[in-house]
């Protein structure tokens, strides 16, 4: 145990996800010995993130204005909508540069064990966006785990009567890796989802 401010900082850092007590201590002492202007910048960034970041009123991605950067972009296609669980998934899909449509962030996945049902997600808002018929394809890009799959199925059943195309991301082998390093479950799934070329 250290005393006063340094222990407070270690405790606070230790509450962050992925930071254990050892890491918290290392970061705390790094901050202590760092240049005051650098530390100031970090402090300001922390404060600003809570004060200025809000959620886009259209897609619920993180935004600094009423709407996020992507929803404001007129070059984006309005007819394809990609549904993801979290804002960080938007960033992941954006990094591919493949997708030129718009997003909808659900804010999680259906998870009865944690008491999360459809009402806790931005599903009503999604249905409202789809109501005017301008979206022709809905891409379900929820996580490929039990909860993500269930959420995708739920949405697919829900929008079926609307008659738009609903697609699900493929799951399989990572590109650029070696077949031998794939675990047997991923490889088994990839076998199941194989296609003719």
């Amino acid at each position, binding site marked *: 145990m250290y005393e006063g401010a340094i222990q407070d900082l270690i405790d606070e850092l230790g509450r962050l996800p992925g930071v254990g007590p050892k890491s918290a201590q290392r970061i705390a002492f790094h901050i202590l010995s760092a240049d005051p202007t650098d530390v100031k910048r970090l402090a300001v960034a922390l404060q600003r993130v809570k004060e200025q970041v809000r959620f886009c009123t259209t897609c619920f991605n993180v935004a600094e204005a009423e709407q996020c950067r992507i929803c404001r972009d007129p070059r984006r296609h309005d007819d394809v909508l990609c549904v993801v669980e979290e804002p960080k998934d938007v960033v992941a899909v954006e990094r591919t540069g493949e997708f030129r449509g718009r997003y909808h962030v659900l804010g999680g996945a*259906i*998870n*009865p*064990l944690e*008491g999360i*049902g*459809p*009402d806790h997600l931005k599903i009503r808002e999604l249905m409202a966006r789809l109501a005017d018929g301008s979206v022709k394809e809905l891409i379900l890009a929820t996580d490929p*785990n*039990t*909860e993500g*799959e*269930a959420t995708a*199925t*739920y949405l697919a*059943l829900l929008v079926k009567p609307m008659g738009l195309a609903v697609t699900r991301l493929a799951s399989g082998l990572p590109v650029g890796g070696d077949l031998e390093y794939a*675990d*047997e*479950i991923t*490889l*088994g*799934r990839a076998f199941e989802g194989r296609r003719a070329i």
Partner: protein
Amino acid sequence: MYVRRLELVDFRSYPRCVVEFEPGCSVLVGPNGVGKTNLVEALGYVSTLDSHRVATDAPLVRAGATSAVIRSEIVHEHRSLSVELAIEPGKANRARLGGSPVRRARDVLGALRMVLFAPEDLALVRGDPAERRNYLDHLLVARQPRYAGVRADYERVLKQRNALLRTAYLARKTGAGTRDLSTLDVWDVHLASHGAELLAARLELCAALGPHIAKAYDAVAAGRGRAGIAYRSRVPIEPADRESLSAALSAALVESRPSEVERGMTLVGPHRDDLLLTLGELPAKGYASHGESWSMALALRLAAYELLRTEGIEPVLALDDVFAELDAGRRERLAELVGSAGQLLITCAVAEDVPAALRGARYEVSEGEVHRA
């Protein structure tokens, strides 16, 4: 496949112990309670990451020590592979394969394939259906590791579905109104598709196992009636292809929904199924004598061994304390059945119980020590 070397550090009763094995028969002899079973248990752990005796890891670590280490060297098709496991209760096991650490301990699964029969296996016949489901599922995974994922997926969906039914049940009971069950259809879809995959695989396995079980039982029992197995499910299991099973499961879920909502849990699916073991016309459970039950349990393990063997995986076979239970005639017949095993590990208290045909290398086990005789 055979085990060439086993080294234990602070595992069960052994502070440190090294045993070198050869292909063929090895007989571990020693009085009761000196730790013969601990040796096969350690190898079983390398093979399944599970003890056949205890559900938690704490008893595996020698009293006073903080962690146990199992090092083994396995030879398969003339290549030797070392598998090292460090067991520290309350923490994830650490594993090394060929000297290098692996990311997850389960990456070592498949390095050692072993079928172990132990007195605890009597529960396969007399115990709950869960024992028999586990028997089938473990064998499925040994044949096709992909089924570890199928089973995990099914169990996750089941857990989520049960959580949903449970909250609805509690809401109703406390009068907080009926809770939203709109996502139940979604969980039904996934439960039926994962369930059908697991069910189809179990049925296929049962069909493949049947003849092996009859043959093995015939060898080890006095030949009173034929041993058989039949898969029991509340869901119609004919035809046994995945699509039909998925449809059958979906229909069963629809049918049982009122009672599921009533009781707050999932009442149909592979997690409620059983494997019926029969001797002649009668079910083994409840009707079989101790000797018959014991022979049936042994037959189940021997059938698993034979099945893996016919499919090109030659597992190590370990028989823990088997021969003392058999009369001379049955000892000979069992020896005939398993005598050609690539590697056979036998534990016994009295060396003379083991038929002459199986007397290969002999090891004397005494308190915490093993010596080649």
